[in-house]
Each structure stands twice: as C-alpha cells, then as structure tokens.
C-alpha cells in the first residue's frame, strides 16, 4: 500500500533528515514508527501525504509514484489518508460540528449523510454536547478527541497518527490508543509515529525504529528500543 524505496531527504544546506530509508506497509497493518525528536518521523509523514518530495529515492502509494502525480491526484490520495496530529490542526473559526463535517464536505457528500455521519462520530467520541463550541472552548483532551473524530468520520483506509498522545494524560492516552486499535481491527491501516515507549510496548505490533534518519530496526512484533 505504502512503499519507501531508498528514500533520502536533505534540507539545505546539507541536513540529511532521512537516509536511504526503505520499507513497505501492507493494507490493514498497525505500524509504529519510533524515534527521538528529530529522527525524521514527521518528514516521513509529510512524504506519505505528498507534502515533501524525496531528494533521492521514491515513495509509492498503491503502486503509484507520488513524484509523478499531479496536484489533483495528490489531493485524491490525501482524502484517503486521515491524520491525527500533536498540534491537532483544527480549524479555529469552525465549530466542532463544522470541523468534522469539513472532511465530508471536501468529498462532496450530501447534507443528510454528513449530518448522520458527524452525529455518529461525535457521539462515539463523546463530543455531542459540544458540537456548537469552537476548538478554543475545548480542553486539550477534547481537542485531541475532536482531531480523532475528524480523522474517523470518512472511514479512511489509512490513519497517520503523529504523536497523538503527546499532550495527553494517561487516561486520555489510553482512550486514544484504544480507539486506534479498534479502527485497525475494523480494517484500516494505522501508522503511529511516537516517542512514547509505554504506548508502543503495550501494542505489541510492528515497530520501525528510526535513528538519525536511518532505519535501524523493523520488527513484526517489536518493542521501543533505542
């Protein structure tokens, strides 16, 4: 589904963030990409989303080389991938309801379907009573849950969670991880980028370990070892 082939990314003047990175992620997998801050995890995410191009090597999505795709094809891939980010990336001027609905509006879904789906996901995530609130009126945990609701609403094939528990207390962390596992069991591919040792060790799933932009370990049932 996602394939990195000898990918190197160098930022000017000579800062190599990823070096000769190769791996493949199959449909339905739950993969944790671990590493210290600055190991290259976020650059990896940005490459999957087509936000960055490799300096060398190729990134493939469903067999298509992202380098050869035009802007509308890239946007079509981005619609298949949902992201949960440490900084949430919410729309501050939209309400909770509108933040979630926007994803379906981008896909051109009907008003009725949007109303049903958004209500369902807000119910699931426990934000139904805050649907008219703006993000700044929510707590950190609620904002993270809103980001998750937005990532789930269009039943994506892939979820990229970049440090989704970075700002959360243990209780909210457990809730988020529980949800991600549930989504994965329902068939979605989950790519978790984190430096949270405890979270990764509890999962007991595939772990790719990045150190200084290089993959030093890729294990089917791995642990957080750096």
């Amino acid at each position, binding site marked *: 589904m996602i394939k990195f082939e000898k990918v190197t990314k160098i930022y000017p003047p000579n800062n190599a963030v990823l070096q000769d990175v190769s791996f493949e992620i199959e449909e339905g997998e739950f993969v944790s990409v671990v590493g210290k801050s600055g190991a290259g995890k976020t650059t990896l995410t940005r490459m999957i*989303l087509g*936000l960055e191009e490799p300096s060398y090597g190729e990134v493939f999505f469903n067999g298509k080389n992202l380098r050869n795709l035009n*802007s*509308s094809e890239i*946007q*079509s*891939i*981005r*619609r*298949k*991938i*949902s*992201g949960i980010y440490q900084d949430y*990336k*919410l*729309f*501050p*001027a*939209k309400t909770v309801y*509108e933040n979630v609905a*926007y*994803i379906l*509006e*981008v*896909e*051109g879904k*009907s*008003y009725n379907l949007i109303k049903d789906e958004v209500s369902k996901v807000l119910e699931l995530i426990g934000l139904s009573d805050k649907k008219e609130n703006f993000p700044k009126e929510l707590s950190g945990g609620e904002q993270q849950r809103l980001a998750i609701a*937005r990532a789930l609403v269009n039943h994506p094939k892939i979820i990229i969670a970049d440090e989704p528990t970075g700002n959360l207390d243990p209780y909210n962390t457990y809730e988020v991880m529980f949800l991600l596992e549930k989504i994965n069991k329902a068939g979605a591919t989950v790519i978790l980028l984190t430096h949270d040792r405890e979270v990764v060790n509890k999962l007991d799933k595939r772990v790719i370990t990045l150190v200084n932009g290089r993959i030093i370990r890729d294990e089917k049932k791995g642990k957080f070892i750096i």
Partner: protein
Amino acid sequence: MFTNISRTIKFAFNNFSRNKGISIATIFVLVVAIMLVTSLFFFRGITNYLTTELKNKIDITAYFIENASEEDILNVKEELLKISPNIKSIEYISKEKAYAIFSEKYQDSEVLQRALLEVGDNPFLPSLNIITNGDPAEYQEISNTLETSVFSSLIHKIDFYQKKDTIEKVYSITSNINRFGIIAGIILIIISILVVLNTVKLAIDSSKDEISTMKIVGASDWFVRGPFIAEGIIYGLIAFLFCILFSGIFAYLFSAKVSVILPGFNMFNYFLNNFWLFVLIQLIFGVGVGVVSSLVVVKKYLDI
C-alpha cells in the same frame, strides 16, 4: 457543483461574520480606496467642464469682403464643414447682425454709439465665427484653407494670427489639466490597489495555517480558494453600497459650493447623469480588487 457553490457561500458568510474585526477593517479600506477612485471621476467631470468652457471661449473669425453674397459665405461654411471634421461650431454673422450685436453690447457707451452714427453706413463686414476642438494646428489649418482656396478672393481678413498666442496658451493649459488628471488617476488607482491588496493579505494571513490544513485533508484548490473569493465579493459589494451612498450625499452637499467656483456645473446632476457609470466603476473596482487580492494572496499559501 451546486452543493459546492452553496458550501462555498456558506463558508464565506461564516468567515465574514466570525471575523468581524477583520471584515470591518477590510471593508473600511475598500471604501476609502473606492472613494479615491470615485473622486477621480468627479474630478474628471469638473476638468471636462472646465476645459470645454475654456475651449468654447476660443474662436477665430473669417471676415468677408463687403460685397460677398450670403450664398457665397454659406457655401464656404459648407465646404469648411466638409474639409474639417473637428469643427465644433461655425456661425454666419451677417453685416446687419454684427451691427446689432455691437449696438447692443455697447449701448451704454455714448462715445462708441456716437462714433457709429458719425460713420453713417454699417461699417461691419459679414463673417464666419469658427470654433474647433481647441487644437492650434486645427485653427491654423482652417486659416490656411481659407487663405489659399478658391474662396480666398472673398476673404477680407482672418484673425487667427492675432489670437494665435491665446489659442496656444489655452490649448496648453487644457492639455496639461488632462495629462495631470490621467497621471494622478493612475497613481491613485495603483495606491488604492496596493492598499487593498495588503489589507486582504493581512486578513488571509490569519487563515494561513487553516489553508494548509485544508490542503492536507485533501481539499481541492478551488474548494480552498472559493470561500476567500466569495468573501472578497461580499467585501466588495458592501463597500460598493456604502460608496454609492456616500457619493450621492457628497455630490448633493458640495454641488452648491462647486457651482460658485464653476458656474453652470451642477455636481449632483453630473452624478445623476452618470449614475450607472459610477455604479459600474465602484462595483468593478470594489468587487474586482477584492476578488483579485484574495486570489493572489491565497495562491501563495496553496502551493503545498
């Protein structure tokens, strides 16, 4: 398609109403910019009136020999009209009419009235009074035509050379007024556009991160830029409504004061007579600059 358009409009209205401070500031700047451009058109009205009045004060007169027949003079008039398309008016003044005009003009001057009586006969010559577009070259050409054509034997005198300096001065003044108007207009329009562009940039800059997120979740370029363009249209329309109202009030209030300086020029009538031109200019400038500024600024943030 229809769903996307209605969503775009909804997003635009939401952005507009939820960012009241920015919306009001942008509309205020647009109103100032549109009023600047509008003032240019009032200025154009005033200068057009002024230059036309000045040009109409300038004429040349061709005096015919005493025994030239009216028919011959009218033939000359027809020929001149055929040869020179820039002639604005050409008036035949017979001996009798010239006498009557002089008598009426100097009816209070005893000396001149007595002089006229002493001469006895009507001393005036029949003439053609010619007004063109004000260009000295045009007057020169008409003068030359009259002096060198077959009618030259009928001509007694043409007063072009006596008036040449005055004609050139007036033409130079009116040309300079027009040139100044065009240059000042271009500068003001450029300043207005830059001011609006920067204000819209400030307004959209606050949505920079939002635009980037929209792109990350897969929104197409048009889905992202659509609401900003619609918002630009809303800004432009509201600013236009204020401006057309202000222009009417301004023209009404200052009409009497301008008439004191320029008798015969009614500013409010000028506004009413050119109402649709004002509407068009304000609408095109307000909405156009609002939309183009939005397009230019959003484009910068779409390239991710």
